[in-house]
């Protein structure tokens, strides 16, 4: 059923008319034209669509719009004004990306991890990040980038 929703995304309120079951992923990409949040699997298994919901990492492909009332959503577009979040800078410094498609989601997971655990151990990084698949195999660089960002 089509309903009206008010979403707080990147500190801005967006009015959206949409089906109550539509996942946030497709609201962002199709309704709002915010394409930094990527579609990878649609079943919460790859992490490409990771966003922050009240500061925690969530898979936006599993979040129906009807569940988002009163929440603060942050997407990769809202992580920093100019791509200068410490995690983004570490990603550039260590030349992490290959194809780059999964990296929005990796960065959103990594920034949520550091927000809640500023000095994670290697094992904590590995476990937290295990929901994010990188098909090109940049895991080693991602881990180093998170460790670098943690020092900033």
């Amino acid at each position, binding site marked *: 059923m089509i309903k009206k929703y008010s979403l707080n995304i990147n500190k801005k309120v967006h009015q959206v008319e949409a089906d109550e079951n539509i996942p946030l992923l497709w609201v962002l990409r199709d309704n709002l034209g915010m394409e930094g949040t990527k579609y990878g*699997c649609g079943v919460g298994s790859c992490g490409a669509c990771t966003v922050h919901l009240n500061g925690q990492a969530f898979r936006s492909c599993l979040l129906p719009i009807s569940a988002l009332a009163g929440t603060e959503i942050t997407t*990769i577009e809202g992580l920093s004004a100019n*791509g200068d979040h410490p995690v983004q800078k570490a*990603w550039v410094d260590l030349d992490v990306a*290959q194809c*780059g498609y999964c*990296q929005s989601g990796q960065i959103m997971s990594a920034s949520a991890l550091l927000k809640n655990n500023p000095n994670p151990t290697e094992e904590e990084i590995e476990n937290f990040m295990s929901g994010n698949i990188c*098909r*090109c195999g940049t895991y080693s660089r991602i*881990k180093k980038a998170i460790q670098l960002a943690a020092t900033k």
Partner: protein
Amino acid sequence: MKKTNSNLSRRSFLKVTSLSGGGMMLGISWFASAKPEDSLAELNIEPVWQEVTSFVKINTDNSIKIFSPNPEFGQNVMTSLPMLIAEELDVDWKQVEVEQGNYDPKAFPRQFTGGSQSIRMAWKQLRTVGSAARQMILTAASQAWNLPVSELSTSNGMVTHAFSGKSETYGTFAAAAAKLPVPKDIVLKGNESFRLVGSPQKNVVGPKIVQGKPLFGLDYREPGMLIAMTERPPAFGMQLKSFDATAAKKMPGIVDVFAIKVYQDDHKFAGFDTRSFNEVIAVVGKSTWDVMNARKKIKVDWEVASEKKEMGMNHRENIVPSGLESTKKHYAQMLEMDKKPGKIERRDGEPEKAFAEAKHVIERTYTAPFLAHNIMEPTNTFAHFVGDKVRFVAPIQIPDMMVPSIVARLGIPRENISIELVRMGGGFGRRAYGHYMIEAALISKQANAPIKLIYTREDDVSGGIYRPSYQLTYRAAFNENKQLIAFHAKGGGVPESPLHANRFPAGAIDNYLAESWVIPSNITIGAFRAPRSNFNAAAEQSFLDEISEYMDKDPIAFRLELLQRAKDNPVGKTNDYDPSRYMGVLALVRDKSGWGKSENAGKKRGVSAYFCHNSYAAQVIDLRVNGEQVTVDQVTTALDCGVVVNPEGAKNMAEGAAIDGIGNALFGQLTLTDGRTDQRNFDTYRMIRHNEAPKKIDVHFVKNEIDPTGLGEPPFPPVFAAVANALYKATGKRFYQQPFQPQLIG
């Protein structure tokens, strides 16, 4: 310019054009009828281009734009190809802005991403572009200052006259340079003079990637664009019988539902025309969510397809068998084929006699399943068909290979097809097969609207163009002194053979036999990072490990011994590899990993080496096994790919190859039951994850002056056997069937 030292064709020459803003643009082209005295005016006629081409633009403000011609899927050619031009142009890399060239066979004749060939093919051509531009700038400066060229020098985009202290930017002379004839002799730098080539440079797109910019095909949109998806048979071997879309058409946002035929029945299939299903039902609607929901409402009758004959190019008939195939049956069929005589691919000496006289024979059979590419960005393409023209925005590895098929299917002239090339969220071979472009064009034509065709992850996994399932049986014969006297490789697959009969250890053993066979199938297969090599290496390098153990020899020493034989006194006329370079990577990985050193005595380590795509790679892998869990502590990679253009990007690729190889060796499999894939998404298709990645990866390059020979694929194949050989050390068990990890359970 008949004589240059850049080894270009004699008919080649460079093309200059003035930019409206007063700058110059330089390209390189291969003109059928070029004369050395061709002037700028004559060069403005429509050229016929034949090989690699690229452009550099120099603006009056001294900004430099370099177009990267080849499609980018993460191999980082958008950085490394422009580096070649910038090196010879002698500009500051920071001045350079890089832009992806769109499909334009007149400007960029080799827009091909595959086979680890981009840098290899561009190595001299793109440097020639840069060098010619630099020489023209120098000539223009010499004329403006009335000074001999010999007294001028360049550095960082500046021309300097040392005696007088004069110094101006390239941009100052760009407009005048653009009016000059193209130089006849173009000199390239010697490798010892490189300043940029060989220096680590970051991915030029990195800052955009970390901000999630809409770089990918799936991110493309424009006003009025509709979304399309296709409903296809639930299993290989099935086809559309009939469907009822009444309910689907009533769903919110749905514009139309109709069937399309990807290729006509009489289509002559070229090499990259492979598609999983020929007739599919297109659903077109306003949004992705609308279309996803409407797909579920289509009532479809599928039926088992009968045997088909498809015409290949060169009038070769390809049989697509009928039936619903299963992995279990494939493995049984492959074992059956192994018992029958195969097609002899190579025979040296008297292998049958040697085996008959042998004191001992070791025989082992290796298998591997189908693998799905699992490109992170699912398959997609934008197409807008208007009148007799079609415009694409497409993630495609080899656009030029698809154009003839688009021409044939849509009946429009080649020049009416335009393709904007977008960054690809992975490729690995999957995006060499551009049937989705034809699907998108047909849907746009029928819907009379611009559309973006999207595959869901389930579409991609369950209807893929897979790495084939393979089997290889090796036999080694020994005399009473445990000396290797004969070698037999017999391999095949569903539906192609992986065998490379002229690769190592052919050439190193007096009595050698290689046989192949195939099993026809309706499962669609195609190139997957290092096709065939990715399995050959796994099987061969595991087998060599096992026989070296029987012979009481160190695995690396044994390989080096065989290679020394191939170098000193090769068997047979055709051996595809260079034993010296092979030995080079083995020696490097031995030294860098501390192989055989007492402090490493307790480590569970395996070694492997392979040659493919003109380059050589070796790995030593250290791992631990705890129950069903494998922890890879370290990967040491040695790579000989000739001169390394961008060590940062090259290391990243080799690290990725190690992780990709470990993941596929341990977990990768696409299995089928009655034509239906058992895996449909990442919840059932196990991919390697962060906590399973190696704790440390070291990459070492053999330093030499060999022109670049390729990088993306070569470090991938040997990983599988290095894992298998290390697992043997850890568990005492040999691993013959991929994937390995399920065999640790129970």
